[in-house]
């Protein structure tokens, strides 16, 4: 009898959870897609749309591990300077072309020769791509690179149909309007500023997928309007609702709200090149003076988590450091030791680029007041702001503190530490390749660790180096470490199987609608 009940329950579960085929999912996005040419994609919205049309050789899963995609498996040879990929057979592009080693080579040749926007991701790493046989392809690198597979999983590495490259390759706009990949959905129509429509790929190589017949990505600029459309049942899915509406959304019985941590960290950069912030005690004091728990709880309403490292806890290579727990007394004491008891500082911040960015700055202004620091908060428009803090001109380096976010597209440690903390990437170093170290931080020990991380393919050693580097950086405190962002998705109750990744991607490959 008990067995029967168990069987019955199990059956009930299966029936209850089994996916249904068919239907259209309406996904609201805040801005229009920029381009659907993988090598040119600069933004996360285009990535979300594109990932349903295209696939790369490898992919990053929800736990940020590298998993096979169009490549079934791979070998790492010659001490990490060569990767041999064994490709999946019987995969076809949406236009009927075969997926094989020639298609892979053609894509990388195209990327390099057409000089697409994101070519920098590979140019300094990949020496050449060789076809071994129809379904084997070899990438030869200049030197070992620990982030190579992660970079391959980025949108730039998505494989486009060789026929499409032949037909439209000399015109990026035509390529962008005729995206042909191997993914679960095929491109149907893009109405500029309005919507992008995809339809099911009936020959998709993953058995039984996808479930949906159609996806419509619709552009709605205002976040309140996006929320209202989902509440009204005119749309099925949106992400990043305003935190103020969060509680109401969670109470709405027709909706489900999902919160997923991401690789994006929000921090305040401290210009270490000038007093008073060249004094490590002052920088540490600022860290102790900010109550991150409170920021996350009250201001972000749970849409963020305090951070204790330059890496988000989701990023590959993260290791906890303890960070700076809230301790205003210690902050006061450190400021006293440094001889700055009545400090005046200025913080510049974007307004509206990140969730509650300006509001966070103002809250911190209040917290710093408690320890005797007067903070002047100056909001700036995003375009002007970026030009200011990422300017290579010395006359622009007069800022003291700035609020910024960083999300490594590769989701791994090197793309955080190298651009942001290696001294070769300081704003004032002439040969910087990724000049994002705009707090003028340098620590020879950290440089050395980052260089080791770059070429280390032994996982255990890589994690050791990375933990040590994080510890040193936190000690040196070139940032006020604030929080890591969560991504919140709001969807209709009937929507199932949506996958949200810490890389801020949203996949509908396995989604279905229970209607």
């Amino acid at each position, binding site marked *: 009898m008990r067995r029967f009940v168990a069987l019955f329950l199990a059956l009930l579960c299966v029936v209850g959870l089994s996916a249904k085929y068919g239907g259209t999912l309406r996904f609201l996005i805040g801005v229009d897609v920029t381009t659907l040419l993988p090598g040119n994609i600069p933004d996360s919205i285009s990535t979300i749309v594109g990932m349903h049309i295209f696939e790369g050789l490898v992919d990053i899963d929800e736990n940020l591990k590298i998993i096979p995609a169009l490549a079934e498996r791979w070998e790492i040879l010659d001490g990490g300077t060569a990767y041999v990929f064994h490709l999946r057979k019987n995969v076809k592009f949406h236009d009927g072309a075969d997926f094989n080693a020639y298609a892979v080579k053609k894509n990388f040749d195209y990327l390099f020769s057409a000089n697409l926007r994101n070519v920098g991701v590979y140019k300094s790493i990949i020496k050449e791509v060789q076809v071994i046989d129809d379904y084997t392809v070899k990438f030869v690198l200049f030197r070992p690179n620990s982030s190579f597979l992660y970079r391959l999983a980025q949108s730039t590495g998505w494989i486009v149909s060789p026929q499409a490259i032949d037909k439209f390759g000399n015109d990026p706009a035509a390529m962008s309007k005729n995206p042909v990949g191997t993914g679960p959905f095929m491109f149907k129509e893009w109405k500029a500023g309005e919507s992008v429509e995809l339809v099911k790929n009936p020959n998709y190589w993953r058995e039984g997928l996808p479930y949906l017949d159609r996806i419509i990505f619709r552009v709605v600029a205002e976040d309140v309007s996006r929320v209202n459309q989902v509440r009204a049942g005119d749309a099925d899915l949106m992400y990043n609702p305003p935190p103020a509406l969060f509680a109401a959304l969670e109470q709405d019985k027709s909706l489900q709200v999902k919160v997923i941590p991401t690789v994006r960290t929000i921090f305040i950069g401290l210009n270490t090149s000038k007093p008073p912030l060249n004094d490590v005690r002052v920088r540490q004091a600022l860290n102790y003076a900010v109550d991150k728990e409170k920021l996350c709880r009250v201001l972000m309403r749970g849409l963020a988590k305090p951070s204790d490292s330059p890496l988000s806890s989701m990023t590959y290579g993260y290791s906890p450091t303890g960070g700076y727990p809230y301790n205003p007394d210690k902050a006061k004491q450190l400021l006293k030791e440094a001889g700055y008891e009545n400090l005046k500082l200025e913080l510049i911040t974007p307004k509206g680029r990140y969730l509650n960015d300006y509001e966070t700055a103002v809250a911190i202004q209040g917290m710093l007041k408690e320890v005797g620091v007067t903070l002047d908060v100056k909001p700036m428009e995003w375009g002007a702001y970026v030009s200011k803090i990422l300017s290579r001109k010395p006359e622009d380096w007069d800022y003291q503190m700035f609020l910024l976010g960083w999300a490594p597209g590769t989701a791994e440690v090197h793309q955080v530490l190298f651009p942001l903390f290696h001294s070769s990437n300081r704003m004032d170093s002439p040969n910087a390749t*990724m000049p994002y170290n705009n707090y003028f931080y340098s620590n020879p020990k950290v440089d050395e660790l980052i260089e080791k991380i770059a070429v280390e393919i032994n996982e255990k050693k890589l994690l050791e180096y990375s933990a040590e580097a994080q510890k040193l950086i936190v000690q040196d405190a070139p940032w006020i470490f604030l929080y890591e962002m969560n991504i919140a998705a709001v969807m209709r109750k009937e929507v199932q199987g949506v996958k949200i990744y810490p890389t801020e991607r949203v996949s509908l490959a396995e989604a279905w609608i229970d209607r």
Partner: protein
Amino acid sequence: MLRFIVRRLLLLIPVVIGVSIVSFSIMHMIPGDPARIIAGEGATAEDIMSIRIKYGLDRPLIEQYFRFMKGVLTNDLRSIRTERPILSEILPRFANTAQLAFVSIIISSVIGVTLGIVSAVKRNSWVDTFSMVFSLVGVSMPIFWLGILLIILFAVTLRWLPSGGKGGVEHLILPAITLGLATSAIIARMTRASVLEVLNQDYVRTVVAFGLPKRKIIYKYVLRNALIPVVTVIGLQFGYLLGGAVLTESVFGWPGLGRFVVDSIFSRDYIAVQVGIMLIATTFVLVNLAVDLVYAFIDPRLRRG
């Protein structure tokens, strides 16, 4: 009449050139490097430099301007952000905005002119008070807020109408009413003032003294004269609406021109902003021309000249 139209059309050329120079310089004066913004966070120095060279952003401003004007004349311009031909980006959005503007201006003219006439004729009655309160509220209510209220009432709560986006006629109703109500308030005030003024003219007093029926007086003697300034206001409002009603388009997710220009400014897509503003300026001039023609139709005295 024909000479008048041709002259006005020729006047378009200096206006458009002037607008192009002004918008070109303003866009370049605001800080912010398009290459930097387009490349996205995490781009390498190499990526940014190659974008800059590709779009000639490293060249002197004068050269950039002439390249731009040449692109306009040869129809060879592409959006910096999307790399698509700029006209194929802008024209569909302009058509959307025109659709919305057209329906809104009809709604607002009907409501505004009716309310204005009624309240002028029945001055100081409850109808007058009501319509003036209505127009005061209409003028002072933020469009943004009104739009969201309408969405919450008609889309979220009652579910009678879609909450936004573009689709069938039903998608047009809420945004058109939102825009129309705000505009009708302005038109109602103008109509009322204008009708009152005409009612006080000597010739109207004379016909009143002749004992003609009131209805006939209003239609035959008052409206024709009173409507001239009203037509001006309607024309101006229509021009504004065609320029893109940014807030309404944002709230309702209406893929129009206004929102497009604003997004282009934020992404420093110079080409898109300049072409967008030139298009808006051109339509404004054309709408003004149309208004003048309507004047001439209403008031024969203006046909000479």
